[in-house]
């Protein structure tokens, strides 16, 4: 019991982890961000009209396995990635964090987010939505097994490209 208590995941711990992740993404420290990922991590953004869909059956916006994430980061850090050159400036707020459940060493977490994206001529994009994470206990912190991003917009249209990591 004492041992279980010691290992129980707290919201504060998860918040620390997600706030750190958000800072790395805002600062474009994407190689460092990758160290937060499990070897089999997935990064998923379902389409707005099929939020509960399965990426093997439904056309997602992003459905990356670990290798595709690695390639995505090589791409966005390349100066020839025109959509992110010069880099967008982003600012995210992560909140309303809830621990939804525990499956062995995996904690299921929901959080809300707002991400503002600034491009030249002060064009501002606002991505508003929620995250669902599967976080694995790892050396006193966590690894991301799955990051699923639900964008809460009736139409994704006005957001344009999703060339940053949400």
């Amino acid at each position, binding site marked *: 019991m004492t041992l279980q208590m010691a290992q129980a995941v707290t919201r504060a711990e998860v918040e620390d982890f997600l706030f750190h992740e958000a800072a790395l993404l805002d600062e474009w420290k994407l190689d460092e961000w990758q160290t937060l990922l499990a070897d089999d991590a997935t990064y998923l953004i379902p389409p*707005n009209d099929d939020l509960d869909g399965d990426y093997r059956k439904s056309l997602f916006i992003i459905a990356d396995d670990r290798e595709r994430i690695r390639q995505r980061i*090589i791409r966005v850090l390349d100066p020839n990635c025109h*959509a992110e050159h010069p880099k967008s400036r982003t600012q995210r707020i992560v909140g309303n964090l809830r621990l939804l459940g525990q499956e062995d060493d995996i904690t299921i977490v929901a959080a809300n987010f707002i991400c503002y994206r600034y491009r030249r001529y002060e064009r501002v994009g606002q991505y508003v939505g929620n995250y669902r994470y599967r976080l694995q206990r790892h050396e006193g912190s966590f690894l991301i097994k799955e990051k699923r991003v639900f964008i809460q917009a009736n139409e994704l*249209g006005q957001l344009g490209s*999703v060339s940053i990591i949400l």
Partner: protein
Amino acid sequence: MPRSYVIDDPEKGVFLLDREVHVSEEVLREEMRKIFAKCWIYVGHGSELKKPGDFLTRRVAGRPVIFVRDQKGEVQCHFNTCRHRGALVCADRAGNARRFFCVYHGWIYGNDGKLNRVPGDEAYTAAFDKEELALKKPAKFENYRDFWFMSLDPEIVPLEEYLGRTTEYLDLVIDQSPSNQMEILPGTQEYDVGANWKLMVENSVDDYHLPSTHATWLNFMANSGVKVEPPKEKGLVLPTKGYAVDLENGHFTTDNVNFRGRPVAKWISLYGDAAKGEIEEIRKELVERLGEERATRVADTNRNLVIFPNLVINDGSSVTVRTFYPEGVGRMHVTAWALGPVEETENARARRLDAFLTFYGPGGFATPDDVEALELVQQGLANWSDDRWSEMSRGMGREGEQLNSDEHHLRIFWRHWNAMMGAEA
């Protein structure tokens, strides 16, 4: 003499486009009358409406419509506008309904569009005829092999005549399916682009831009073991030869020897070794059904087809159906779907979707850079009045077959567009 927006001088080999076409409010207003109200415009695919009552609400050529399969199983297209005071009668994006109910005063229409019920209809005189008050429809609504189009022009030629030679290319796409049935897959991609809609027409078929705009995609392919060799033949931009084909009536396509893999049916290392056998099976079925020559055509060539004015079918790394519509002069709304054979296995379907995302869509490895390129154009065009002409003469002196990496097909679009804008309407 109507005004011309192009300088078209085949003798000198010069083709210039007046940049006003991308920035002028007046041009956009004219396009609404002379282009969007005078063409066949894509509404949707019959596979999106599986059962009677299935409906989708869309804006097509700026018009809110209900694309619906009625109780008899007929595909219909109604204006989403109440005959009473004009409110939308359906606010849902998609669903299944026998009736559409106007929340304002409670008028109720069947999914066939007929006006079924008017609360308190005893207050009207004998002149009030419910039969006459069915939901209005676009003047014309027809399909070619389940691709449904509408037209606001009652005088327009039948759809099949309008599509002309594009049907050869639609047939080639549909030939991927053993039962000749393709379906739109669940999940819609939508992305606005801060650029004039006609720039998307150009971009969708312009193979000249691939090496520069999509350098990171080529790099990704190389990292995934798909070596894209530099062109061996002089004058080529892409590794394999490809053509630009005039399909008349303002339609055109690229027609390329594939170098980037195809879920039907050309394996590349990106798909993984496990997929090899299955792709061989798909290929075998194609050969048995269609013969060697046609199977090779389906599997080893790819095409980006433009059906004038705003439908693009990219039959490349996957199949995308893409349409776009102006939201003002410097902005467009793009909608894209994935298309696949209905009988595809679960693994083949997953591979198709994955291949789609390697290139296309707002989170793809190529489309965001296209979006950026078009936005750079639109922003640069703020200087249009002092730097007036876009240079589009590439390949103009070329005799015979035209290359996909030239601008022959772009000129086809602009000549047709210019002629339609010059006509009275």
